[in-house]
């Protein structure tokens, strides 16, 4: 199996015997409050999903990621994983201090050893990461709302959070052991933020034909309005896996992180995270992690050419559709028929049907999946 990114699976979880002491210590330390997204990323760092990161980026890594798409040690890394804080929150704090990280439930979740506090330019960050400073882009809007300074330093997780998806929360060490136990040497990772339709099934099964195992890894976390709710995505996948997939060839677990909508850069980031989970291959579809028309349709595939040292093999897929003549899901590489024969997997159409309480056609969505979707009065993020 491939080693993790950077060669070592990071483990920044405090040993059990230190956790109680750390909780008491946290009560006496200065505190930094974080939102749900940052709380999730602290866990991702601590569990090694973001290996080789051991904490939030300091300035030299931050600038290198922004401008070179690499950490300062030359390893590919495309998204700045940073902790922002206001001047007020940082008053009196300096390099060498330890602070307690407090989650939205007002509970201490981690300790942060401050290595650096530094200013940053929001416009520069937005332009480099999202390729735009247009505030209509959700990533830019979030960047513009960031606080004044960034705080770099290693984190130590005190306790793991709890949520309704506990059953599907596997750490990279767990997926790696699981894949090994299953005897898989090659594993394809499939990132999703959507319910599964026939096009996804076609891509997953095509990819699985050439490797030992399939790792379906839905992103669970903040999404934009109109996206499917997390619980709907998981329930839909459960139905699909139960009826149409071999149990011995498929594993599903969630990735708890927000969608950044950073397109090509996020595709590389998603691939690195799946490499840490033990994948050897990674599916990159059309407009991966895109939003609106901010990125060319296949930019997220082309960017992989810049990273010969990524250590995970991208599997680029063309856009897929149902062809009435072929009577199957196909793409433009394998279907000779003209566009009048095509039925596209239109998210807008699917949404309209579900809102009206109509079942989508069987050539687009499996009936068992459609049945699950129709159970929700509103399956979409508000």
């Amino acid at each position, binding site marked *: 199996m491939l080693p993790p990114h950077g060669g070592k*699976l990071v483990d920044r979880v405090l040993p059990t015997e230190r956790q109680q002491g750390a909780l008491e210590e946290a009560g006496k330390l200065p505190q930094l409050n974080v939102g749900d997204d940052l709380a999730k990323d602290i866990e991702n760092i601590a569990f090694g999903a973001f290996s080789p990161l051991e904490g939030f980026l300091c300035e030299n890594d931050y600038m290198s990621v922004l401008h070179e798409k690499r950490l300062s040690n030359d390893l590919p890394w495309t998204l700045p994983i940073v902790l922002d804080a206001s001047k007020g929150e940082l008053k009196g704090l300096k390099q060498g201090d330890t602070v307690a990280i407090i989650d939205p439930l007002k509970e201490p979740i981690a300790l942060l050893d401050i290595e650096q506090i530094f200013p940053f330019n929001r416009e520069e960050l937005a332009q480099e990461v999202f390729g735009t400073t247009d505030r209509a882009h959700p990533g830019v809007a979030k960047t513009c709302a960031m606080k004044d300074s960034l705080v770099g330093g290693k984190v130590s997780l005190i306790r793991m959070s709890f949520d309704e998806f506990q*059953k599907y929360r596997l750490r990279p060490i767990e997926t790696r*052991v*699981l894949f090994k136990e299953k005897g898989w040497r090659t594993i394809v990772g499939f990132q999703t933020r959507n319910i599964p339709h026939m096009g996804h099934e076609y891509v997953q099964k095509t990819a699985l034909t050439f490797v030992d195992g399939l790792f379906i890894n839905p992103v669970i976390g903040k999404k934009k309005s109109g996206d499917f709710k997390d619980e709907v995505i998981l329930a839909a996948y459960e139905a699909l896996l139960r009826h149409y997939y071999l149990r011995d060839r498929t594993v599903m677990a969630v990735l708890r992180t927000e969608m950044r909508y950073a397109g090509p850069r996020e595709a590389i980031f998603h691939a690195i995270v799946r490499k840490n989970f033990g994948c050897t291959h990674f599916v990159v579809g059309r407009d991966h992690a895109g939003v609106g028309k901010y990125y060319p349709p296949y930019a997220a595939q082309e960017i992989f050419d810049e990273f010969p040292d990524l250590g995970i093999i991208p599997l680029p897929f063309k856009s897929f559709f149902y062809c009435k003549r072929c009577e199957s899901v196909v793409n433009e590489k394998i279907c000779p028929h003209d566009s009048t024969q095509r039925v596209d997997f239109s998210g807008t159409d699917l949404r309209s049907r579900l809102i009206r309480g109509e079942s989508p056609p069987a050539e687009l969505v499996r009936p068992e999946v459609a049945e699950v979707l129709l159970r929700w009065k509103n399956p979409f993020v508000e």
Partner: protein
Amino acid sequence: MEKRKTIEVPEALYDRIGARIRGTEFASVSDYVTRVIRERLAVEENQKPQGYTKEEEEKVKARLKALGYL
């Protein structure tokens, strides 16, 4: 702009690379050499071991069994 350092290659090799990259996506011999070295390093780095102990592996298996994955 990232910091760069100089390395030396035989002149004939330099010329050969220069001729080869003409009209390609490589802007310079340095860009070509950087890519080739990164490719080579990735191959070597992918030979490293997993990095967890037998004891850790057994604990993980117990949790995987409890969750129904094994």
